[in-house]
């Protein structure tokens, strides 16, 4: 097995171009598990942890650019105020060790239907910045996943960063697992309010082959809030609206039965989490105080 360890981003892209079969490795919390279990035998490992550009984040033109190599622990500590939804999700990932090692880029590229980073990125309309020697493109996160553990990256491409706007409204994330920590999600749901655009963002995890937004639910809620002029003058939400939101979210799922839970349970739980998190964000929107589970 060859082991490549570039120390500049440019060299990393160069290496990937010349070794299209190379497996990038960032925190290694997915790659090493796969190697350990014999599911993967890469001919070449491309270690990205020596590339300083990947571990930076910056705020340009009102948008955050988060390097693919930023680990969960730093998303929580350094960006928790600007990206509360992503921070809540990050806190549910694995254990302290995993949160120190595991990165957002790795989570995206693993493209697991259960990746906890994906729903909040969907809810915030994040974009994935993809680079190769051929150039740079940005892919809306909703178009990044093409199937279970599959994505749009070409053989010579690497994820450089994620672009996402800092929160302008309340954000929440909810996860159900078969135990209380160190657990792969049975299902997850993220919601974000974007009051300045009078829009609602959503993201579902572990409820379909790929993470996906609940577009109809989000549009229904946004229209409802706009029609009743609640963005600026919020009142308690009618029960019927909360229920409908939950139903529309549940209708977006295409889950399976597995050892963690049944498809029916997932669909049911998704409606519950949608109502639950909507309750939290709406309360925060009205009172300015964040709620926690």
């Amino acid at each position: 097995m060859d082991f490549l360890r570039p120390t500049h981003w440019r060299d990393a892209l160069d290496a990937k171009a010349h070794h299209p079969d190379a497996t990038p490795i960032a925190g290694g919390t997915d790659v090493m598990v796969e190697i350990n279990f014999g599911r993967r035998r890469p001919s070449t490992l491309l270690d990205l942890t020596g590339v300083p550009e990947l571990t930076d984040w910056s705020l340009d033109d009102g948008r955050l650019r988060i390097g693919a190599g930023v680990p969960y622990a730093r998303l929580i500590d350094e960006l928790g105020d600007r990206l509360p939804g992503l921070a809540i999700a990050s806190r549910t990932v694995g254990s302290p060790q995993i949160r120190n090692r595991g990165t957002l880029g790795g989570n995206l590229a693993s493209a697991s239907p259960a990746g906890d980073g994906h729903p909040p990125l969907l809810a915030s309309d994040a974009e994935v910045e993809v680079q190769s020697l051929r150039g740079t493109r940005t892919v809306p996160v909703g178009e990044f996943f093409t199937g279970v553990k599959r994505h749009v990256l070409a053989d010579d491409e690497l994820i450089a960063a994620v672009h996402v706007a800092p929160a302008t409204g309340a954000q929440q994330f909810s996860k159900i697992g078969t135990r209380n920590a160190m657990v792969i999600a049975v299902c997850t749901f993220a919601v974000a309010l974007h009051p300045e655009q009078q829009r609602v963002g959503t993201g579902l995890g572990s409820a379909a082959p790929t993470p996906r937004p609940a577009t109809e639910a989000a549009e229904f809620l946004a229209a409802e809030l706009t029609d009743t002029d609640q963005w600026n003058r919020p009142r308690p939400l009618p029960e019927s609206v909360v229920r409908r939101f939950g139903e529309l979210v549940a209708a977006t799922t295409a889950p399976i039965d597995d050892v963690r839970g049944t498809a029916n349970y997932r669909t049911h739980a998704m409606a519950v989490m949608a109502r639950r998190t909507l309750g939290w964000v709406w309360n925060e929107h009205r009172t300015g105080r964040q709620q926690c589970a």
Partner: protein
Amino acid sequence: MTSQVTPYAIGTALQRLDGRSKVTGTAPYAFERVVDNATYLHPVQATIALGQITAIDTAEAEALDGVITILTHVNAPRLASTEDRELAVLQTDRVSFRGQLIGAVIADTPETARQAAGLVRISYAQWPHEAELSSERSDLYTPEAVNPSFPADTDEGDVDTAMSAAPVTLDTTYTTPLEYNNPMEPHTTVALWNDHELTLYDSTQGAHTVRTTVAPVIGLDPERIHVSAPHVGGGFGSKGIPHAHIVLAALAARTVEGRPVKFALTRQQMFSLAGHRTPTIQRVRLAADTDGRLSALAHDVVEWTSKVKEFAEQTAVPSRNVYAAPNRRTSHRLAALDVPVPSWMRAPGECPGMFGPEVAVDEMALKCGIDPVEFRARNEPDVDPETGKPFSSRHLVECLREGADRFGWHHRDPTPASRTERGWLVGTGVASSIYPTLRAVSTATIRVEAADHYRVDIGATDIGTGTWTALTQIAADALEVPVGHVDLRIGETAQPEASVAGGSTGNATWGTAIVEAARALQDTHGRPPEIGAEASGTTPNNPETERFAMFAHGAQFAEVRVHADTGEIRVPRMLGVFAAGRIINPRTAHSQFIGGMTMGLSMALHEVGVLDTRFGHVVNHDFAEYHIPTNADVGDIDATWIDEDDPYVNPMGAKGIGEIGIVGAAAAIANAAHHATGIRLRELPITPDALLR
């Protein structure tokens, strides 16, 4: 009455004597033994559940740099005895379960051994296998005895007639799943064969057990086998009966004579090679009058064993001793399947066997409209229902009542699903625990090295339970000296023969041997004995067992919260109250109790081996998918005990406590979940989807 040791050190919360060496990493575990010129073994395992090996191609593996040799059934040394088919490794081309040891690579590094093992090509003739347990199987059979030597069936009175005569009856089936012991330290062995002597540094619950088990298999005089296990990182029964990997390591060591062979099972390998708890299907029938007095109790169990070797878990046995019921029936039926060999797992028998009946009793109490604590008290027997002997001591009802007081049971509205707090349904549940008080035979030697230095030797084991500390306390009191004067040595076959750390018999057995040795020392050498004096003592038969039935008892209480909308389940609070004779060391005892209860919580909510019956392997064979609780799942778990004076069990008046903590814990949680939600859970583990209406 057994003459009692006056407790002085006994009963004090002495800190673990091995604690410092453990937390500083200097306590040697088996695999860490520093040996010269080590080789490493990686096994080759069968990838089919049943069949025959037709060809083995080791060429590619042998070509790897650093591979010393590869053993298969073709070239492995012949064993002296293949009677124990679990241990008869590499003796035939037959594959009897998926994951079976069918080869071994010995190499200079663990990485090379592992890589080479992956390069060994095996061809099989595959035969149809059977791995599906069901109570409908036509081939269920009655074992001659259940673990270790109880009758498989008992029948007293007439259950059927009592069932048809009683105003309140219950006939329900409960199940517990395939479960794995999963001690933190995997099974590891370092084997060195030199000039007809075999040395094993092994992670085992009994150094002497390994010696006496391995000796006839490999055909060595037991005196030529030296086993060392001073520190063991947990066993929970899986290191009690020596498993095949030890024999494989011994064969490998013989092959590379003079060089030590290091062999550590991976977590995944442990799922096919280190034993497991059979799934159980338990039909429970109860009959009672409207006052809740049981007239009949029947417990009929279906479970599995391996075709390779029979292990019959004694699941229905606790039903013979817990409650008074004149008409009583228990039975065990086994399906022999093409699965790995089941074995002991913490409280074999009592642990699964107190799930079904203790949930059934909760159901019955509700049917009779009687509080579950009171229902149990009403069925308290005067004498052991099975033998008719009085109990040497029994405080089950006291445990239940004390627990109820401490837990706040009396404020409880018995109506299920009657309490909601911020979207969470809240309930409480109770269950009884019972565990037999047994002892085995061991020998201890004490030698006076100096006026303040008593060396105590006994080949006992500390599997993390606190043996180093507790036996030192017992020896100090037996010798009537401060603990600082006792120099205990355990964990080696070089020490006098001692029994396995199993069946919660350790302290009772080893402690009694030490007391006997101390008495012999004082009897022959006076008080204080002169320097250089030495004496031995052996655990005698306890004549009191003719007169008395001996058990430890306990009561388990749990609070459960179930989210009304998602079925998420939390256990914020558990309390165990036990009556287990004299507690030798409250600190280590508390850890044993709450550790057992935590394992019971794990059984209730998490543990299940998902067997893919098509291929005969467990899909979730690692800690990523075979869940045990995390810290965030464990709430406020506490244990306490009732001071129990029992002069009949042994000179310390102590009953075993290593296992009773797990007994009944899962039932208490299932009962609490019912109280919270009104949903009766008869199948473990309890998952959120089961708690949604």
